[in-house]
């Protein structure tokens, strides 16, 4: 999101959307409420991914792992040590941040494809590690957590989502955001204009992982249990899909992406257009289509309309990475 002065129209739309989100539970059943909570969780996770991939241009296909770290922090503290589940959120963010920095440091040495591969491997490796230490993590069976009503989950997750959104907006509009984007657009130009590359790149990973950790915690709360497969490869891929379909580098796109990833499968199955087996096929096809037709994601369309300017600030058609062929 080009974080210039938002237009009046854009602010109006934002308020309308926020009110709509707040009022929605009144019209929905408890089950739908928890689905809405899922959307909020994905909103936060996709937002997190956006910070590291959309803004600093570092590819991550492993955000499920960051979610896992936050989620297991919450689960272990709540289940094994009796903490109040909400109270674990800040700690999950902290642990996430630390893990993100841990991943971000070696990531400094990798670019493009190598980074994608590394994060992909992290995404697959973390669940395996979780399976290996059942004493802490409950192993393959996992840990169970206290349940909450759908409405409570909906409200909590969306409030946290709102907080995260505002935090991200504040972070990205200022110097940090500009530094992030300059890293994405040209590392060499950035460092020669005084942006300490390693600091900002690692910071981006840290912040992104912190947010993802929070998302993981909430995810665990919504599902009221955790096991390694919950945070498997599929999750990481779906977060990426959401980010990409919505549009990387755009905060509005995050909402679109989250809705797409959570609601499309449900929409397809409940209206009996097709069976649940076909969901991944359709997702995959949509991703390919979006990449072929609208590389900047759906938000590109929305953004121009809302005058928020959801473009990445580049004049060319090419969405990410300045390395052409």
């Amino acid at each position, binding site marked *: 999101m080009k974080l210039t002065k938002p237009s009046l129209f854009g602010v109006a739309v934002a308020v309308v959307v926020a009110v709509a989100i707040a009022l929605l539970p009144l019209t929905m059943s408890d089950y739908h409420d928890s689905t809405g909570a899922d959307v909020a969780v994905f909103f936060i996770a996709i937002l997190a991914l956006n910070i590291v991939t959309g803004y600093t241009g570092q*590819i991550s*296909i492993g955000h499920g792992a960051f979610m896992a770290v936050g989620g297991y922090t919450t689960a272990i503290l709540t289940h094994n040590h009796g903490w109040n589940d909400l109270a674990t959120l800040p700690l999950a963010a902290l642990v996430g941040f630390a893990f993100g920095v841990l991943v971000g440091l*070696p990531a400094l*040495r*990798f670019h*493009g*494809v*190598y980074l*994608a*591969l*590394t994060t*992909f*491997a*992290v995404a*697959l*490796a973390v669940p*395996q*590690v979780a*399976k*290996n230490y059942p004493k802490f993590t409950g192993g393959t069976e996992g840990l169970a957590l206290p349940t909450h009503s759908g409405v409570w989950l909906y409200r909590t997750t969306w409030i946290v989502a709102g907080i995260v959104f505002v935090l991200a907006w504040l972070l990205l509009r200022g110097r940090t955001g500009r530094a992030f984007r300059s890293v994405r657009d*040209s*590392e*060499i130009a950035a460092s020669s204009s005084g942006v300490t590359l390693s600091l900002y790149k690692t910071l981006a990973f840290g912040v992104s992982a912190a947010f993802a950790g929070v998302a993981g915690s909430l995810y665990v709360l919504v599902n009221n249990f955790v096991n390694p497969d919950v945070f498997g*490869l599929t999750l990481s*891929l779906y977060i*990426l*899909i959401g980010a*990409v379909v919505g549009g990387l580098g755009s905060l509005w796109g995050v909402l679109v992406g989250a809705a797409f990833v959570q609601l499309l499968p449900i929409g397809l199955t409940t209206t009996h257009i097709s*069976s649940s*087996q*076909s*969901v*991944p*096929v359709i*997702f*995959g*096809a*949509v*991703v*390919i289509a979006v*990449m*072929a*037709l609208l*590389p900047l994601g759906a938000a590109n369309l929305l953004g121009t309309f809302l005058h928020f300017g959801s473009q990445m600030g580049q004049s060319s*058609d*090419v*969405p*990410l*990475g*300045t*390395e*052409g*062929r």
Partner: protein
Amino acid sequence: MATASLTQRGTAFRPTTSWIVPALIAVGCVFLVIGSLRSSLFAQQTISGLANGGIYASLAVALVLIYRATEVINFAQGALATFTTYVAWQLIDWGLTYWLAFVCTLGIAFVGGFLVQLVAIRPVERRGNQLTVVIASIGLLILVEGLVGWIWGNEIKFMPAPFPSHIYRVGGVSFSRQDIATIAISIASVVLLRLLFQFTKLGLAMRASAVRPDAARLVGIRVSWMLSLGWGLAAVLGAVAGMMAAASPSVLLQPSMMDGILIYAFAAAVLGGLESAAGAVIGALAIGVTLNLLGAYVSWVTPQLLLPAAFVLMLVVLLVKPSGLFGRTRVRRV
């Protein structure tokens, strides 16, 4: 003149003249031979490790093939291999003999890979850059794995073994015919590919398209067809990997069959420097053997930790030598 990219392809690289890597490999081989002579368990683990490595090698070379041509990692390579393996299963279920099904599958894989590039990748390449193609390949991964589950269901299927389980015994060491066959077939497919590239006009055209597409067009090469051909060949290698994996006792025929193997293949390709097929093969064999030996001799390395172990291995090598063991150091131009 098009704006220069940060990493100019084909310009300014230093070829690896280091002797360290070949020395390491020599030491490794000596270690394996000595170990095998001293312990039959060691020998067994080494052989089956090599067999696993053979499977990873086929898939790794497929990845390298596409990467060399387009600087894109095809995340769907494993899923495509799974698909072709299921096709083989279906053919056998319909009554074909194993080897007839194998050969048909290779043909189907070639055509399939070619078409996938044409239909799914080319439109994306036209408007996007490497990253969008990589994301599209992830979309392809999801699509193809989903397709397998949709068509054939998620339950585990049984794939008949090509070789009746014949055990050879040499000096107290027993290894299966399947293992030997896997090693042989994997190596053979990679060698055949190498011959194609080195000694045929088509292979030369493909190599030229990979390193200098613009210059290749000027001499009359239809570069986009070369890319499609590359995908077709990669799919064939993937099909070989899939068939060998399905024949292995430790792998079950299910939609997620190649997910872990894909990681090992990535690690192998990365170790090899992503642009060297020979490097990928050596990397794959090394990973196969190392993981087997680790699992057998180091007590805290459980089966679940093998994947993270491979990852850590890959990470360590990359940190020390970011361009892989056999890679060429790329100089980034301003």
